[in-house]
């Protein structure tokens, strides 16, 4: 399941960025301050705690 479609990727990163902007705890240490950039970095390291439910 590791290869996500572009829509799943967009949704996951977007939801994670929203969570970070609302104060969720981070899973990586980084110097960045933009929630979107942090979310992208978490996605690239494969540690975002969100997954997709496929039918």
């Amino acid at each position: 399941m590791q290869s996500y479609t572009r829509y799943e990727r967009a949704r996951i990163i977007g939801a994670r960025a929203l969570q970070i902007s609302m104060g969720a705890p981070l899973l990586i240490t980084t110097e960045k301050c933009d929630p979107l950039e942090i979310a992208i970095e978490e996605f690239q390291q494969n540690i975002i705690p969100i997954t997709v439910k496929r039918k």
Partner: protein
Amino acid sequence: MYYRMKLSDKVRVPPHRLGEALDKVILDVLQEQLEGSIDKEIGIFIGVTKVLNIGEGEIIPGDGAVFYDVDFEALVLRLSLQEVMEGLVVETTSFGAFVSLGPIDAMLHVSQISDEYISFDEKNSRLICQESKRFIAVGEPIRSRLVTLSLNEREPRDSKIGLTMRQSGLGTGVWLEDDMNKEKEKEKGGERGSQ
């Protein structure tokens, strides 16, 4: 009547609490959500006792929070008309007494206390029956019957519950003891009389 019920609901875990232990967070949020609230079909929520099962966490577009389907146990007060309730008098006024049934207060109107004429003793905060001199004071236990029920889900404080004591077997703790003693005297006297 009090019930311990198994219920299901959706719980919203806010993003800033996502790092904590799930069971604890769900219990906390559930308590906050439900305690003191009123549901017309279920009753008055007193508290959540146990979280039984937590489902998958869903994320919906536009909100960063996670939504869980949760099965849990809760303590609920479910009132029905004509039910006999026991409560504590918390306040007396010229138009009646306020009786606490636990999570909610009910009102005992002055016309529903007794067949006699009632007067309000403001100095001592008592409602006194003219002939029998029986009275109701703050802090006394009361056994009464529910006659009107109007629960407001949105403003629980605006709910109105009406009680009556104008039936045999109902009254304050003191009255009921008195009545019971009198019955016992009657029985004893009757026995002696027949002998």
